Every structure is written in structure tokens, then in C-alpha cells.
């Protein structure tokens, strides 16, 4: 593909990137602490969970769906892993794997109910948000303060190829998701059902399989985000992940993926998640009054998106 086509194709992402760069430059002038290697790693780590969940959400939104259960599914992984490991003494690797499996299964149930139950994705995943949160509360009720073994915390801070593991994992997942979208039938089919489900069906695409796979993958991303969360906090708070759905969706949409499906790019979500993390981190660093923060964050996001659209 020629550079020109690439640029035309990714216009919105490029402008979002320009907004990100502009915000970074402004913040660098406002605080000497902002543009330091250490702080950039911090931003990366702080962005990682939202980004990983956002990558699954990207798939879901491209398929013209939505997943409100992401925060609860993240908590589900953490709690199951904690109960197995801390209460039942199961090895952390096995406990983690079982927790991931259970979460992926919950994601799959989302897909099945949406596909075969014909329940709108909004309601299905809202229901799953409640059910999974309830399960988390139930299984952790006796032990609200479980904490993970020291070695496990490596996941939050350990370095791989010189970069912190959460950032490394985000990069790997971002690459995998973007390869999935670009180089697999499933990925292409996700775009197809998001753009026009009937046309996709008449082109021989197995809608049920694609839809269920999409929500299952979103569940997997939540599980991986949950592992990072668990290592970052070293504990299994039952309220983990509350409110994460709106952040993840926002990252996806800031990145130029439209809620009505059929289009979207991984690079956009990466930029969106970074932009959100940079703003939040920057406002802390330059000591903006917390009461002003939500105003500033809200305004910057709207303005960034407005810019990337005005050029269309």
C-alpha cells in the first residue's frame, strides 16, 4: 500500500495521535516530572489495563456490539484466582489459568445469549455485569482482603526486554489483535458483520460463530487485564473494575472506531487509551484541583474527537 493510501485510511487515527502529541508537549512544558522515562513507564502501566480491555472492546464495537460487563469480568478473574490460590492453596499458575478460563467462558455466554437469545448486547452485557459482580461478591465475601504471593507481583513490575511487563503484554496483545483483524477470516468477518450483518450472512459467514468468538475474545482480554490488575494491586478487592466499561468504550471511540460498527483500528484504541492515561497522569502531576479534573478530562476528550472529525 502506498503511503498516501495509508494516510488517507488512518486520517482519524493520525489526528488523534497529533492530539496526543500536543497534549504530551504541553504537559512537558508544565511540569519537569512529566516527560521522564520513569513517568512515561508509569503512564504505560496506568494505561495498560484500560488498553487491554479496550482491545477486546474494539473487536466487540467493530462487530456493532457493546460489552458493559468488562469491569465485572475483570473482577471475576481476580476473585476466582484469589480464592483458589489464597483460600484453597492452589498453585498461582493453575489458579490463574482456571480463573482465565472461567472469565472467557462468561464472555462466551454473553455471545451466546446475544446470538441465540436475541437479547440486545447492551442488555445482555449489562445483565452479565450484575451477575458477574454478584458472583465476585459471593465468592469473596468471607475473605475481602486476600492478597497474592510476592512472586506474582513480578507481573506488575518485572521488566521484559527493558520494559515493564504490563506494557509489554499490552503491546503483544495489541499486535495480536491487529493481526487477527487483518490476517484472519475471523477478523475480516468481524468487520463484515459490523458493517452489514445480512450481507455478511449471505456471503457465507457464520454469524453465530463470529459473534460468540468476538465476545469470548473480549472476555479473554478482561481476564488478562484482571491478571495485570491483580498484580498491580496485589490483592483481590471485590469492587475491582467498577466503571471500567465507559473508559474502555471511550478509548475505542476516541481512536476513531464508530459505535455503529463495521470500522475501526487497533492503533486508534492504543492512542485513545494513551490519551486518557496521559491526561489523567498529567493532571495529577501538574496538580490540578481534583474538582477541576473531571471537567478538564471531559473537555479535552470532546475537543480531541472534535478535531479529528472536523478534518474529515
Amino acid at each position, binding site marked *: 500500500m502506498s503511503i498516501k493510501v495509508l494516510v488517507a485510511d488512518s486520517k482519524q487515527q493520525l489526528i488523534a495521535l497529533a492530539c496526543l502529541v500536543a497534549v504530551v508537549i504541553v504537559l512537558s512544558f508544565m511540569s519537569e*516530572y512529566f516527560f521522564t522515562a520513569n513517568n512515561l513507564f*508509569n503512564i504505560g502501566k*496506568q494505561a495498560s489495563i484500560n488498553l487491554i480491555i479496550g482491545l477486546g472492546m474494539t473487536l466487540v464495537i467493530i462487530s456493532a456490539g457493546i460489552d458493559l460487563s468488562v469491569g465485572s469480568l475483570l473482577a471475576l478473574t481476580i476473585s476466582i484466582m484469589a480464592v483458589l490460590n489464597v483460600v484453597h492453596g492452589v498453585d498461582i499458575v493453575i489458579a490463574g489459568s482456571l480463573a482465565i478460563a472461567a472469565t472467557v467462558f462468561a464472555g462466551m455466554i454473553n455471545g451466546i445469549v446475544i446470538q441465540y437469545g436475541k437479547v440486545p448486547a447492551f442488555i445482555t452485557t449489562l445483565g452479565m455485569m450484575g451477575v458477574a459482580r454478584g458472583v*465476585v461478591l459471593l465468592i469473596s465475601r468471607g475473605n*475481602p482482603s486476600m492478597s497474592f504471593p510476592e512472586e506474582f507481583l513480578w507481573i506488575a513490575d518485572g521488566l521484559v526486554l527493558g520494559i515493564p511487563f504490563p506494557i509489554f503484554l499490552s503491546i503483544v496483545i495489541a499486535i495480536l489483535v491487529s493481526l487477527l483483524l487483518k490476517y484472519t477470516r475471523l477478523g475480516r468477518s468481524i468487520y463484515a458483520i459490523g458493517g452489514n450483518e445480512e450481507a455478511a450472512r449471505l456471503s457465507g459467514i457464520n454469524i453465530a460463530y463470529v459473534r460468540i468468538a468476538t465476545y469470548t475474545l473480549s472476555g479473554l482480554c478482561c481476564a488478562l487485564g484482571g491478571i495485570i490488575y491483580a498484580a*498491580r494491586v496485589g490483592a483481590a478487592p*471485590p469492587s*475491582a473494575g467498577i466503571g471500567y466499561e465507559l473508559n474502555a468504550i471511550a478509548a475505542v471511540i476516541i481512536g476513531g472506531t464508530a459505535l455503529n460498527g463495521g470500522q475501526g483500528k487497533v492503533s486508534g484504541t492504543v492512542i485513545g487509551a494513551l490519551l486518557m492515561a496521559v491526561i489523567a497522569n498529567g493532571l495529577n502531576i501538574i496538580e490540578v484541583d481534583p474538582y477541576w479534573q473531571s471537567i478538564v478530562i471531559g473537555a479535552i476528550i470532546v475537543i480531541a474527537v472534535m478535531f479529528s472529525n472536523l478534518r474529515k
Partner: protein
Amino acid sequence: ADLKGAIVVMDLTTNAFQIEMADQAVAYGKEVGVDIQRYAPAGSFGDYEGQISIIENLITKNTDIIILVAGHTTALVPVVKKAMKAGVAVVNMDNRLNTTDMVAYVGVDNGQGGKMAVDYIAKRLGGIGKIALIQGETGNPVQILRTKGFELGALVHPGLEVAAQQGAHWTEEEGLKVMEDILQSHPDLDGVFGESDNLAVGAARAAASAGKTDIVIVGYDGQQGGYEAIKKGDVAATIRMDARKMVELSIDAALKYIANGKTTEGIDPETYIAPELVTAAEVDQYITN
């Protein structure tokens, strides 16, 4: 030069007690020469990860002192260790962290407070009656401690029958709705413990709407809204935690730690302030305007 300090709480938006702790810290900081900034995660009340991010940012900024009102007993431990290692003086306030790797802990025994509330209800009812509990955010550590205190209190007063136990959030609206529903199945209710003043105020509204003004309602925290309700007679009492005192002890401990060359020698590892019962008799001294 001034020291750079920070108070990190869970919530600067909904919870007046958390806001009060933060504001008191800023005020006391000015008195003793520490420039204290207030922080809370942007997300919901359970956003522990947000607190971690804030502390990471504070380490980056070479903050000298962090007063941490931890949202969770274990979740913040790893990042607190990191901060201590980086030379930040971290004092844990209010909600007890599961670690000793910090300058000190200063707090209130939430369990004891919960029990005090039941004791007061028992006293007012003469030891006999039907009571209910309106819980705070389900699964929150403070909720769990206050609930445990309540349950313990109910055990020592066998004449009290726990008719209902419901809840979900800390808000007035939740207190109102839950109380409306409880009063449906238990119109003969005698006493209620709301685990925050917000809940108690909401419950009092429901009782007033239903025309039941003789129910003994007790809140928790010691917020202005609660005090005003006590003054009006809608709420019988609240359990006050002295934010000012906690803040003073915490900042003093941090300053001592820094003066000591960053050792904890001579600093009390834990200090508990007794929760106080505030009823109509004592309430006037706490109302600020």
C-alpha cells in the same frame, strides 16, 4: 523550604468524611509547613487501581509525605512498599493496611464504632426492640468492619431482634429506598443503624414520609448533613471519627520520621482514636455554620 505532601483518599466527591479528612490535612499542613495536595481516583469508590496510579505519580514527583486513606487493606501494599523504598514517608490513615512497611498507622476502630451504634440504640430502646441495618457499599472493607461491629452489638443485646439487613451503596438515595422497602415488611421497626450519615439521613426521610418519627436512627461518620439531621431530631445520633486528630497524628508521625533520618524509631506503629458518639446533646459544637 516547605515539604511536599499529599493526602490520597478514595473519594473527594461523594463522601463528606473523606473530603473532611483531605481538607483537614491541607489545613494542618499549612500550619506545620507542609504543602499538601489532595488526591482521589477519578473512578468509582472501588477504584483502588486509581489510587495506585496516583501514588506512582507522587513517587515520580519526589513527594516527601503521603497520607494514605487506603481504599483496601491489601491492594495498596505493593505500591506503598515502593513508595517507602523511594524515600517517601507514607502514613496510613483510617483504613488499616495489611503491612508494617510504612511510617505508622492512625485510625479509628470501625468495628468498635459499629458496636457503639447498636449499644446506643439498645440504650434508647431499653434493650428490647426490632432493629435493621442499612449497609454501605457491599464488599467494601469499611462496610464489612462496621457490619461486624453491628452484628457483635446485636449479639450482646439479646433483646434486640435484627429484622432486616440490606444495602448496596453509601448514598442518601439508597438509604431512602432501602428504608422504604424495609418499612413495608417491618412497619413496627424500632431502630436503624445506617453505616454512613448519608444512609441515615436517607432512612430518616423514608421514616418521615411514612409518618414513623419514633424510630431511633443512628448514622456513622460525623458529617455536617448528619449533624444537622441530629439537630432537627430526624436522626438520633452518629458515630464521629475525629478527622482533625487523625490528620494531626499522621502528619506529625511523618515529620518525625523525616527528622529521624527516615527511621521509624520512636514512632508509634499504630494509634487508634476512639470513635465518639454524638447525640443531640453534643451536636451543637460540631455544626460549623
